[in-house]
């Protein structure tokens, strides 16, 4: 296990690209500037700065390095493109500059006028354009790059009871990290000693610091604020929360947005079409005007004005800026397509537990026909074997020192549990389960209804087919659920809550939070089917946790998966929320809409530019250098416009 110094201080490829374009830019202009002066003085003042044949030689000599040294990458890639039929942007520029440069050489034979100065200027402007564009593209991805740099470089760990500092690559699962106040938590782990507040905003977007005590999970790259924490490492490297986020963002950039398809189709045939157009233009001008030099000039203008780049950058830049804005707020766009679909969404379906509510139910009331301790002893012993949150609440409440032995334990999904304790058959569950087991709860009906009207999930406890008591469990609403629902309702969305709870409990909670429509008594596996039914009315977004609700998230037109603090649901959901808050849903809807609007805007401008500029060039209205400047500006405009998305308040 050794250090790898090269690995850590590597310059990001984006910066390398900017530096390299920057260098080429300076050299190109140093040489092109004199060319421009020679050309302009001749044009404007009508007298040559240098005598005629010599001026061409000077221009050719100065222009050569601009095109064939500093522009070599473009020439090389362009020519290769022409020969392999993988045409690209460079093919157009390469052809344009080479043809223009060649006129300088052939001008000595007297057949054409010298255009070679134009070649250097085209290349210099192209380089300038690429430089500015690279900076703007770097800006578009700045938030994402910040995420990459967020990871800690070192960690202090305990080895043989001694604190030693090691590089992050050497930290292993099971190591104990010591994190002082103000320090970055090096990697994911679980607190084993100490207490503190941790600022998790950089990865979850959650602005308030989170309390961390023994047994809590912490996320790597978050900042420990005020106490010393001893944390046992649970995840390193590619398995960490941060690594997952970065993975999601990278993956999302590769996904295609439907609206981009047309642009992609056009860009794929763009270059060959322009090549043909340029050739046709050249021959037509030559034929009709008889002026070979003019025909070459117009042909070159057509070659260099056409810009598939603006079209090709319209969507990815806006998506990148949008992704970055989202990542900062704990919203991860996993599938680009969701951005487009989101604007069609009319119905938002929320899972109840863990989405609208905190997902940590507590026992609020116990109504017992027998000794309360006995009731809790049965209930606690039985529910201990279940993983359900309600079961956990009951176990917590029963607070048993010793659990009774349970035989024939069975979980009836979405209904309850049953088993035998000391020879007695115990059933704990909802109304449906009691009906299935033919246990009458008529005498308790009034009490059950009362609990349910208060939004409490009521578990009926039966011993040998006779009800012995009720346990009511309530799950508190998340702090911002009400705000989020108010905004969505005002925005004209139909909001629906889906839950396994019975109608009355569900309605009571829906009323508290401001949801009008409820789909109750739904078994977990039926959720996807219910979503499918709703899709007949319109596009549906489903908000739920990524584990239990995965099928519904997939079925919905847009699946919004909620994280649970330290875990993010990677596989399910088109959008993933790192923070567990419904305001995140509102934000992700706003973000999707704003990003999509920006994409449309960009595509419009890119199309419009080409539709206007190409005919102008064919018409011979534009000087090749002006054409090149216009081309460079068009792609810069698109990238800059994408960056303006940041101004939008999400």
């Amino acid at each position: 296990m050794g250090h790898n110094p090269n690995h850590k201080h590597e310059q990001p490829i984006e910066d390398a690209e900017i530096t390299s374009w920057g260098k080429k830019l300076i050299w190109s202009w140093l040489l092109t500037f004199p060319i421009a002066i020679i050309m302009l003085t001749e044009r404007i003042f009508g007298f040559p700065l240098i005598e005629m044949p010599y001026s061409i030689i000077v221009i050719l000599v100065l222009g050569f390095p601009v095109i064939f040294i500093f522009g070599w990458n473009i020439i090389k890639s362009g020519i290769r493109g022409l020969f392999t039929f993988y045409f690209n942007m460079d093919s157009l520029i390469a052809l344009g500059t080479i043809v223009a440069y060649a006129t300088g050489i052939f001008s000595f034979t007297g057949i054409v006028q010298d255009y070679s100065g134009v070649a250097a200027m085209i290349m210099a402007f192209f380089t300038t354009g690429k430089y500015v564009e690279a900076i703007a593209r770097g800006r578009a991805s700045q938030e994402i790059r910040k995420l990459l740099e967020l990871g800690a470089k070192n960690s202090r760990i305990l080895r043989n009871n001694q604190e030693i500092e090691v590089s992050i690559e050497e930290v292993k699962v099971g190591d104990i990290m010591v994190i002082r106040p103000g320090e970055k938590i090096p990697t994911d782990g679980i607190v084993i000693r100490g207490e503190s507040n941790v600022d998790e905003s950089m990865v979850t977007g959650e602005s308030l610091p989170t309390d961390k005590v023994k047994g809590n999970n912490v996320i790597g790259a978050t900042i420990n604020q005020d106490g010393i924490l001893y944390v046992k490492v649970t995840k390193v490297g590619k398995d960490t929360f941060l690594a997952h986020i970065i993975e999601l963002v990278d993956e999302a950039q590769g996904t295609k947005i439907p609206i981009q398809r047309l642009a992609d189709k056009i860009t794929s045939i763009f270059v060959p079409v322009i090549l043909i157009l340029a050739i046709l233009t050249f021959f037509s001008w030559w034929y009709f005007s008889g002026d070979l030099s003019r025909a070459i000039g117009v042909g070159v203008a057509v070659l260099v004005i056409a810009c598939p780049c603006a079209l090709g950058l319209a969507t990815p830049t806006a998506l990148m800026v949008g992704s970055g804005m989202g990542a900062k707020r704990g919203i991860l766009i996993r599938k680009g397509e969701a951005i487009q679909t989101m604007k069609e969404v009319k119905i938002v379906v929320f899972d109840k537990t863990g989405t609208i509510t905190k997902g940590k139910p507590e026992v609020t009331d116990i109504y017992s026909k027998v000794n309360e301790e006995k009731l809790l002893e049965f209930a606690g012993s039985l529910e201990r074997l279940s993983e359900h949150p309600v079961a956990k609440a009951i176990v917590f409440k029963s607070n048993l020192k010793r659990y009774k032995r349970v035989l024939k334990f069975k979980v009836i999904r979405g209904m309850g549990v049953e088993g035998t304790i000391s020879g007695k058959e115990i059933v704990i569950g909802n109304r449906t389960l009691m009906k299935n087991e033919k246990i009458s709860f008529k005498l308790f009906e009034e009490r059950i209804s009362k609990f349910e009207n208060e939004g409490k999930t009521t578990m009926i406890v039966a011993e040998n087919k006779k009800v012995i008591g009720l346990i009511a469990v309530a799950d508190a609403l998340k702090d911002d659920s009400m705000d989020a629902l108010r905004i969505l309702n005002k925005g004209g969305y139909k909001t629906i809550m889906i839950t396994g709870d019975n109608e009355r409990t569900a309605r009571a909670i829906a009323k508290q939070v401001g949801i009008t429509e409820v789909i109750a008594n739904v078994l977990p596996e039926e959720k996807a089917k219910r979503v499918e039914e709703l899709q007949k009315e319109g596009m549906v977004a489903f908000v739920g946790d990524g584990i239990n609700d995965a099928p519904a998230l997939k079925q919905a037109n847009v699946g919004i998966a909620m994280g649970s603090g330290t875990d993010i649901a990677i596989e399910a959901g088109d959008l993933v929320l790192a923070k567990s808050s419904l305001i995140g849903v509102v934000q992700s809807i706003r973000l999707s809409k704003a990003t999509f609007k920006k994409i449309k805007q960009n595509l419009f401008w890119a199309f419009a530019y080409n539709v206007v500029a190409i005919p102008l060039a064919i018409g011979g209205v534009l000087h090749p250098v002006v054409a090149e400047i216009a081309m460079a500006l068009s792609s810069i405009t698109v990238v800059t416009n994408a960056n303006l998305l940041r101004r939008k308040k999400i």
Partner: protein
Amino acid sequence: MKKVKLTIEGMHCSSCASNIEKSLKKVSGVMDARVSVMTNKGIVETDDFVSLDELKKAVSKVGYKVAKVE
């Protein structure tokens, strides 16, 4: 199935990216390739028999360079 992440130098826009995608997809054993101009990355899904050299060649064939493989 393997997932290879390539960092690619020299892309200008998504037409470059789609050229690379096309070229990568032609390599036998490559199931899917997604290249992004914004992240300068390509994610290639391949079977277990595709060599990195083949992928690198597919990228350089269309005029770009693989700077890093993950």
